[in-house]
């Protein structure tokens, strides 16, 4: 590899709520299936995942088939996806996936999606119970209250929860939860009541002003905010001129959206005093610096990981080199653009 090992003299560690990350680079939900990639190309990934924390794909209460194909189309500087949240549902997830997630040598940030604000509370409660049952709680955890974080330090320091509040077709009609401050607050509050650990609200960029949504998430009790999810876009079949994707529209991600993601991150960082997980078009180490300078203390790699599943680890190494070369600490970069 051309990338030198992480420079031990540079401290890349970040505290994200109760979870400590060895460095700021993680994956974006739905863009990296660690177990599949390990099986397909490199079993060593399970021993040494290329992320500081692993974020699995969104899970919903019920199993979902996802959208009909085609689901992917490349566009200028990015891609549209209309995957449609296929997943096995939370029960099968708990039975089949949670155990192996907990066996990873990294913290995990679970990601859930609901179709009404109330579903987030149900999902959070179900996952909390599963984690408690997994015996990861502190010895004194029996009968502990869900909202008392102290007694559950042992699993809350390893497992967080991200709320994907930008699904289509939700309770409030055609506008998704994440574009409505009232619903956002309700969804986050519902989850917060059931989840004692790191709670991340993932915001949609398909909005005129993101600041009221960020405030609502903070009011609801989010301990961090991640942004951005994808931008709704459309591509046509070149010949028929009909919508190309099975799901008609899709979400735009990749370098094309980076300037938009940076702007939204910058605005949210000026609005709420919570740690941010920045994502949207991160491809190279300059993008990581940009996101951090706009206010993200953690940076997620999404679609660029499709080119290179090892990218987050590579970026972490490159970040260390950049910081060392500039004589900067992470704190010097964070919010530098403001």
């Amino acid at each position, binding site marked *: 590899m051309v990338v030198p090992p992480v420079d031990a003299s540079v401290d890349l560690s970040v505290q994200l709520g109760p979870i400590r990350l060895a460095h700021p680079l993680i994956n974006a939900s739905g863009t990296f299936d660690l177990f599949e990639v390990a099986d*397909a190309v490199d079993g060593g990934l399970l021993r040494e995942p290329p992320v500081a924390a692993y974020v699995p794909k969104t899970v919903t209460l019920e199993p979902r088939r996802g959208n009909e194909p085609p689901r992917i189309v490349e566009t200028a500087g990015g891609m549209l996806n209309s995957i449609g949240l296929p997943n096995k549902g939370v029960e099968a997830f708990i039975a089949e996936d949670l155990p192996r997630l907990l066996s990873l040598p990294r913290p995990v940030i679970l990601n859930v999606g609901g179709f009404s604000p109330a579903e987030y509370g149900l999902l959070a409660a179900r996952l909390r119970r599963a984690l408690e049952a997994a015996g990861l709680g502190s010895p004194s955890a029996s009968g502990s209250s869900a909202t008392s974080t102290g007694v559950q330090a042992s699993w809350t320091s390893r497992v967080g929860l991200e709320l994907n509040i930008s699904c289509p077709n939700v309770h409030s009609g055609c506008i998704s939860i994440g574009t409505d401050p009232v619903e956002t607050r309700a969804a986050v509050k519902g989850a917060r009541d059931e989840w004692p650990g790191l709670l991340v609200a993932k915001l949609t960029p398909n909005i005129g002003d993101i600041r009221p949504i960020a405030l609502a998430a903070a009011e609801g009790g989010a301990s961090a905010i991640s942004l951005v999810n994808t931008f709704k876009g459309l591509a046509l079949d070149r010949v028929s001129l009909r919508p190309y994707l099975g799901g008609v529209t899709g979400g735009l991600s990749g370098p094309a959206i980076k300037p938009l993601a940076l702007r939204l991150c910058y605005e949210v960082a000026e609005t709420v005093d919570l740690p941010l997980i920045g994502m949207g078009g991160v491809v190279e180490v300059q993008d990581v610096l940009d996101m951090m300078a706009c206010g993200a203390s953690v940076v997620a790699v999404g*679609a660029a990981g499709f080119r290179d599943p090892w990218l987050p680890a590579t970026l972490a190494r490159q970040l260390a080199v950049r910081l060392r070369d500039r004589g900067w600490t992470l704190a010097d970069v964070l919010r530098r653009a403001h």
Partner: protein
Amino acid sequence: MSDGRLLGRVAGLEAFGSMFVLRIDVPGWRPAAPGQFALLQPQTSAVFLPRAFSLHGQSGESLAFLISPVGAGTEELGRSVEGDSVWVLGPVGRGFDLGRLAARAGRLVIVGGGVGIAPFPLLIQALVDASAHRSADAPGERDILVLLGFRDSVQAGGADSFTSAAEAARAAGFSLRVELITEDGSLGRCGLVTDLLAEELSGHDVVVACGAHAMCAAVWEICSACGCDSWFSLEAGMACGVGSCQGCVIALADGSLARVCREGPVFSGETAFGPRAHVCTGQTV
């Protein structure tokens, strides 16, 4: 096991009709099974995602891909010059079931349409290699039938990329019969490769095919009507190629969705298209 994508180096590019063969030396490459594929992207690339290509030839860490330029990604690869760097991720995917095929080489028909001929030289090479481990073959077990269909004589230039694999097979005592057909009759017979298959199928009981989806479906119709085993290497637009994105799904015969990059790209006819008939009539529909 690799510590990241591999960085290959272009060793050559040769035109074959409307297609080209791209040769890449890839230090650290693990041997691929026939039907597996790799994701390629020039180190300096104007497209966002890598593109999937079947292994066409493989000799240690020297790989060959047969590529048809259809859009920005394939055209960019077609402008490669010797020494260019190319990111390579692979081999990935479930290839052909060599165990089953090798034992039945004499009753096998290979059907390729257009650039869908790409995976077969490597398959032939593997069948030949597999026979070397067997003490002796019964008569006819070293006869492989290859049916290739092209749009026109220009595209049919791609068939020449078969020559060396075919010669190596002959040198190893295999007899390879290659029949060629073009849709416009500008080279060989005029018609579809399925016309050839319908004529030639009898006496064979397993078909492997790769080409346009419509061709594959038509091949399956023929095979299923006569209860013949069939295997297809299928395509879908991909983002990751390694099972992360769930973007490459296709609907299987039972209505479920499967990822071409992980459950495929090679699927049995039954899985992809539907059950085969119970009685082999030797006749085609």
